[in-house]
């Protein structure tokens, strides 16, 4: 572990969770700082400028969504929220407020690392470098500039909306997008609650892209939350 390793801010009040992550993360080349409360978390974020934040949504001294909003006022640091199963609405609120992804407790280390890597990569892309207009996910190839999608070398007929939908997911490949976020991007602010519309279009897209729509490889449904395009990179 050296000073160039990415810094993780862990905002978590459960000491066991902190112990587990404090031990595990450095093994994967992360530095860790911990804050047991939201207040301290905000202060740490301001003073240490972490590369990524892990935020537990069950903190006693405040609302996780509040933390996210306040942080988002001055920072684009990726935030991954940790929450229990059955609290989907909390996750959705957090994501809509600016969090980048979520993990459901109990989660495995692999999942955690995968999500963290995706978020960091997107953050890096957003900051600096030109983004590659071509995305390759297994047999799926999306050319954002040329508006062209091929599967196993075959061109796919996509309607403009379907393409916009797919490219939105592709631009955030590996990250979850809430239904609301997708609807607002593609259909406009007023359509934020028309989830049925989204499902229909996702179903259409799924049928065009997936070999077996009931076992999707690319377009993953996150029930109660939204959708995710599977991360191309391991």
């Amino acid at each position: 572990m050296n000073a160039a390793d990415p810094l993780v801010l862990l905002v978590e009040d459960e000491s066991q969770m902190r112990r587990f992550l404090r031990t595990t993360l450095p093994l994967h080349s992360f530095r860790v700082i911990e804050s047991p409360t939201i207040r301290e978390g905000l202060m740490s974020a301001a003073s240490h400028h972490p590369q990524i934040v892990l935020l537990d949504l069950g903190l006693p001294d405040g609302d996780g969504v509040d933390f996210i909003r306040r942080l988002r006022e001055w920072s684009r640091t990726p935030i991954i929220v940790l929450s229990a199963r059955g609290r989907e609405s909390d996750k959705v609120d957090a994501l809509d407020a600016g969090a980048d992804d979520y993990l459901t407790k109990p989660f495995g280390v692999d999942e955690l690392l995968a999500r963290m890597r995706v978020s960091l990569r997107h953050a890096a892309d957003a900051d600096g470098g030109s983004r590659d207009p071509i995305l390759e996910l297994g047999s799926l190839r999306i050319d954002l500039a040329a508006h062209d999608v091929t599967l196993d070398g075959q061109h796919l007929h996509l309607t403009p909306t379907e393409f916009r939908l797919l490219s939105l997911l592709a631009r955030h490949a590996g990250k979850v997008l809430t239904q609301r976020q997708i609807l607002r991007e593609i259909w406009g602010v007023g359509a934020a609650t028309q989830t049925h519309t989204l499902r229909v279009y996702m179903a259409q897209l799924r049928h065009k892209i997936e070999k077996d729509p009931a076992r999707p490889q690319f377009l993953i449904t996150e029930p109660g939350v939204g959708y995710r395009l599977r991360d191309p990179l391991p």
Partner: protein
Amino acid sequence: MIDSRARPDPQALLERVTAVEERERRSKLKIFFGFAPGVGKTYAMLESARQLRAEGVDVVVACVETHGRSETARLLDGLEVLPRKRIHYRGVQLEEVDLDAALQRKPALLLVDELAHTNAPGSRHVKRWQDVLELLDAGIDVYTTLNVQHVESLNDIVAEITTVRVRETIPDSILDRADEIELIDLPPDELLVRLREGKVYIPDLARHAAVNFFRRGNLLSLRELALRRTADHVDADVQEYREIHAIEGTAPTERLLVCVGAGPGSARLLRAGRRSAAALHAPWIAATVELTTRTPLSEEDRRRLEAHLILAESLGAKVVRLSGHRVVDSILEYARKNGITRILVGKSRHKLRLRLRAPIFEDIARQSGDIEVQVIGGDAEPAAPPNLDQDWISIRWKDYGAATLAVALATGFSELGFGLFGQPDVVMLYLLAIMIIGIRFGRGPSLFAAALSVASFDFFFVPPHYTFSISDVQYALTFGMMFAVGFVISTLTSRLRFQGAATRLREERTAALLALSREVGAAVDERHVAEAICRQATEVFGWPATILLPNEFGALVPFAEAGPVSYGPQESAVAHWAFELGKNAGWGTDTLPGSRIACFPLRAGETTFGVLALWPQEGDKALDRAHADLLEAFLRQSTLAIERARYAEEARTAALRAQNESLRNSLLSAVSHDLRTPIAAIIGSAATLRDSAGRLTEAQNKDLLETISEEGERLERLVSNLLQMMRLESGAVDLHREWIPLEEIVGSSLARIEKRSKERPIHIDLAKHLPPLFVDPILFEQLFVNLLENALKHTPEGTPIDISAQSNRDSVRIEVSDRGPGIAAESREKVFEKFVRGDSNVPGAGLGLAICAGIVTAHGGSISALSRDGGGVVFKIELPIGGEPPAVPVMEETRSLDARS
């Protein structure tokens, strides 16, 4: 006399303190009080308001009468004025305070001039002070102006002083409600100067009456009256303050009783009663006695009595109706029984009262014992000119004609049969006639018949015949007897009739209430209760009735009705008003009197449960006092009944919840074993790793760690199943339904069990055009995960699992099948019960399928387990199609962007 420093009463003290706190919180009413028009009340009010405005208070003017006085008008500059509401009435355009606009604007302070003003017909309330009360209730502070002559309890005195009786009065309760009364004083001489300069606006008084009014002597007296009244108000505040801070007993020591009748002096007596009661800080009762021995009151008298009772209530008295043989006895009995310390009586006599008896006040004074009796003297107020004409008109000529006829018949009959029977028999015949007339037509006609009979008897049957002279003294006796008998019989029969009528009325009332309670007692839930109430209301009052109760969104909707009703937005507005403010509204009341519906809130204490609405027919008169009392009793019963139905419902729900509680307990105890096992394994493995660190092989280490990991996951599944089960059972599940294609649910549930299902072939066969399901996505994913996990657990490695789905017009059928050991016939139902395990060697609490069943049931579907042809189990789920999914907006999809294909 009672010691005024009584023991402190904690209960009363608490009530007082609560009342004071309440008063702090409520909106403030300040009255600018004057003794005559022109003293400068409106000016002072505006000045005060401007001051507040400068301090930043949100002040709005609802109505201010400047009457063309420029100095006053100038004060309006800079103040926000609410436009008045225009009402057209009989070709004239009138302007009134726009109450709804004021309520919507909701300023901190509203200025409303002339509190005693009567609103134009078509306004919500009859009087402006009622408007002010509504504004205060809505949380708006109000400043207003008032002259002393408009105060109800002072009306008599003012009339005495000025000989002008003011008609627009406000009840004293408003002054009591006022938080501050500021007396606007002006030396009468100055006022007269102003009058001469034409600076005083004379409202309703005609010029010559104004001359009477504005006499120096009058003004001095009025000024004193106003001063005293203001002092009373202050005194009440001081008294209260003293009482609270000295923590003294607050039980009032006096109780007053005022006797009320139909006579004109009663109104004066009531006002005097109010003043006495206020001065003594004592509660007071207005009692009227319905005599059972008297003929019923005439229509006019009855109306006057009702008016007096209404006045009594508005002055703050409790109204009591007594009945008995004698006024004095009834009053004194009541007084003694209810701890009355002072009785007020008037001097006036009933106009029919014979001068033989002592006036009432003497009797009462003589027999009152310990109770003080105060006689309020003075002449009767100048009432409306006595309607003597009416009395004559009320004589029913028909009855007297019948009496004459009867006597004529008796005479004729006797003439014919005189030979056969003698004089005594003739007398009997006449008596018979008198009796019949008395029974049928009342006292007057029968007395007339008696007189006529005596005359006829004398004329026809007493020698010398056909003359009116009496030759024998004995006949004088006979005449006297006839007359007396006639009198007595007619009195008795008329009393009987009256009593009969009174009893019948009472019986009617009792029967109505009894019928209501019986009907309502039989009803089981709110709806039935409401229907019963409506039916009874229609029967008793003869008008169609509706019960309105709030629905789950809080809006008032008709719950039950009887008779033809048409409920539109106008009627709804009246009903809502009555409901929100807890006061009667509509036809026959002071609020929105022009509407076709009369609404009565069903109140229990401070809460209003609903509204009873009645639909009086065209041309019906307002309810008289007796019926109004009956209505009140009716409403109380109805409220109790509805309350009872609600509580019964709550009790049922509570019983259900208790059942759930016990279920939950059994669940916990049954499952603790299944929770403890993995915990034990984890603790054990971890402890071994920690203690025997160096002595374990690599493989053993790995083994233990694997155990910990697996058992941890198992524990997680178990706990989450448990929680899910508890949620489903307690009914606390909120279904967040969405229209979801089945393939999404299948996809995500397969993803969740990916790790455990690696070796298993899973075949999916979903019909082509399966409609989207209207389900909760998270619960349904859980459903599938449970079914799949169940299959994974109970079937051998490598055996396939099949998922298929089809739909028809009404429902969707989903099947999850395996090739495992299958299911015995008797287990098919049981397998969905809690804690039932297929194979006890397989770990698990037996909740998975129970949860599936719970989820399917919550969505209105059904699930069953069947044996599969060729071995294994098929779990069949049938879901009704929940309707049509919402339309998807069509977008520009005409061409595909891929031009190259």
